[in-house]
């Protein structure tokens, strides 16, 4: 059996990622005694949670043939909205609900543009990304808004059953999505819509509705992610999340989801999120400059995509 056919077995991508993850972990733990400690592991999870939340819904969206580049901008805006509402006297729960509703609304708008009007999702969501990012800057004048509220900050820094709240939140979302994608009719529709939208439509799969739901949920996940980030930082910065858009897309692709739709798993994404978080963490522990961390992340992504090409070719031949 050649390497190419081995790589093409189902689950091979995730298995490979796992191996890579373990190699990285062993390497770092050899280089830094700190690395393997429970606290450090938890801090990796907690720090990646807000990115993981965005990835969680980006994954089914991309599997279904969509794409949402505005999600990180939505995260920035939602933090800002909560901070401003709270500062003007609105209760924190109400403020959070408003921010979540706003995220969902922006998601539906993306769906409207990409699905109902048929715009290219890359362009459509790039447009909303720019509009939302701009609005967040306008609303704050470009300044970071403090957000201190014990109940709210628990969302970012608290503990639940001895685990960081953001990590628990993220894991719950992944477990729910894992079940949804693998077990339910909706999950079936997600894969069908991305694999061949026309054939799916012709057998009665509600392709447009499925995508609309996913765009809406993606907006919602952006808003939730923004809340977690603001809670962690005790402040909302209009551009806090925007820079992480590439990490979100990179994690989804690294996790084995095809940008052409139809293929991918939520677990691959989770593993990729943790891998990217671990890389960052380990390199930081080793005092590598954050500039080099960008280089590392990019290299890992290119390697993963290159490997995917090899697999695709093996499948084609």
């Amino acid at each position: 059996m050649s390497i190419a056919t081995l790589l093409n077995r189902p689950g091979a991508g995730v298995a490979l990622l796992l191996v890579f993850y373990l190699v990285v972990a062993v390497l770092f733990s050899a280089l830094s005694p700190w690395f393997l400690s429970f606290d450090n592991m938890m801090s990796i999870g907690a720090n990646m949670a807000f990115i993981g939340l965005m990835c969680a819904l980006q994954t089914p969206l991309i599997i279904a043939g969509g794409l949402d580049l505005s999600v990180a901008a939505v995260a920035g805006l939602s933090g800002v909205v909560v901070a401003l509402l709270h500062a003007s006297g609105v209760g924190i729960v109400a403020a959070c609900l408003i921010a979540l509703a706003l995220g969902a609304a922006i998601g539906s708008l993306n769906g409207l543009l990409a699905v109902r009007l048929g715009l290219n999702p890359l362009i459509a969501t790039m447009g909303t990304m720019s509009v939302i990012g701009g609005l967040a800057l306008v609303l704050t004048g470009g300044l970071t808004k403090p957000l201190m509220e014990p109940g709210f900050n628990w969302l970012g820094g608290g503990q639940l059953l001895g685990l960081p709240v953001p990590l628990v939140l993220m894991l719950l979302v992944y477990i729910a999505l894992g079940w949804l994608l693998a077990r339910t009719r909706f999950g079936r529709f997600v894969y069908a819509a991305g694999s061949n939208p026309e054939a799916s439509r012709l057998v009665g799969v509600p392709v447009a509705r499925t995508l609309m739901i996913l765009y809406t949920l993606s907006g919602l996940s952006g808003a939730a992610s923004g809340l977690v980030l603001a809670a962690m930082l005790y402040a909302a910065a209009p551009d806090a999340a925007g820079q992480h858009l590439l990490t979100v897309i990179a994690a989804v692709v690294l996790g084995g989801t095809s940008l052409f739709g139809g293929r991918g798993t939520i677990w691959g994404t989770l593993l990729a999120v943790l891998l990217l978080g671990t890389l960052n963490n380990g390199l930081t522990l080793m005092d590598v400059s954050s500039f080099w961390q960008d280089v590392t992340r990019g290299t890992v992504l290119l390697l993963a995509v290159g490997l995917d090409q090899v697999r695709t070719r093996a499948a084609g031949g």
Partner: protein
Amino acid sequence: MATDSPLLVMEGIGKSFGSAQVLRDVDLRLRAGEVLALLGANGAGKSTLVKILCGVYRRDAGTVRLDGEQVHLTRPEEAIAHGVRFLPQEVSVLPDLSVAENILIADLPLKRTWRGREVDRSALRDRAVTLLDRLGSDIDPEQVVHRLSSPQKRLVEIARALAGQARIIVMDEPTAALTEHEAHALFAVVERLKGQQIGIIYISHYLDEVFAISDRIAVLRDGFNAGEFATVSASRREVLDSMLGTSVDELYPPRGKPTDEIALEVENLSFPAALNQVSFAVHRGEILGVFGLLGSGIDQVGRAVYGALGPMPGAIIALGGRSYAPADPRRGRDVGIGFVAAERQREGIVPDLGVAANLTLPFIDRFTRFAAVSRPRELDYAQSWVDRLGIRSAHLRQELRLLSGGNQQKVCLARWLVEGLEVLILEEPTRGVDLGARQELYLALRQWTAKGLAVLLVSSDAEEVAGVCDRAIVLDRGRVSGRFAGGASPADLLHVSTVKDHS
């Protein structure tokens, strides 16, 4: 015209992919100036054999000789350098370049000017004209290729092969996208190529064509040489029998006993530029054929009824006596209509879903409880279809894109064969499907019509409509041009369908 010296000799060719032996000890001979038709069911090994010749695949065993000299063609570029050219089924041209540029793209004539080396426009034009002349064509070499008709694009492709000093041209289903008239123009070109001592390997599913154009016929079956015939002395029956491995009479199952009960009645169905006041009725237990040539309206009639083309204002449609208005595919499915589209790759299969998930896709609700799909039930159901139709797949979760065309089509059909389906609409149900699978598909259809299912079988294959259907209608330029109540021969069907003012 054909000389005796063999231009190409392939001997003892063997090839396997993984554990599947695709070719065993296959021989093929081609003389200069000869048209050799290569026939065989899907999966018989035709395309593998041709791809070995063209340097796409490497053979495991055997020899390839060109002009008596052994050659190793391991890359397409090497095959081209030896004068072996492959013309795929889909025309592949560079749409935004001119005819002359397309023809000479691999070897553009250059000249030196004060600006450096530039394309020599006049030499380009002259050489293109010379090559087009050899094909008897007067296409303007300055014309942009995307403006050309499909047969003209085909000509450009052939001229490009000639520009590369082609000695062997392999044509894969070259007339699949052509009208009959256009196909005849292509045959004239093939005659000219023969006259210029070029050897042609012609792959086609259309027996009429093969008998009209070839000098010899080679048949492959299951990776073996199954027969070789001199075309002048061969009969269609013996060629078909050798392709099928059994007698052709067994291909079509016995007809059923349609009831008097009308399952679907369509009146005044019209669609812009395609259908004009089309009316017909299908009885329960009946297979009604709709035959027509390309552009006759057969591409629209089935999907219009199903709802894939949206609402049909003006049409009066009754399903089981109740009025039904097409709206969208979901509506069609929910009232008990099934639809298998002609373009299997684009509109039929969901390539990344497994066999089981594809089978249950239209009626996934029946396997769903509280939003969750019951996988044991789904797999049981899928296994029962895999057994009944002999669907060949490694396991039930194997992605559908990995199955052969015939097996994919079985899945696309079996999706709809559920309790409660009233009418099944099929477009070109056996296009690109091998004879063994065709037989199984027809049998499955007959089993379901025996239970009262009504089938509308839309096809441009006259033999299929004549062989399978209980009654048939013929479309010509969007109108019903003939109605046959049983026993129509392919010739009868063609007679009322010929587009007469197309020359």
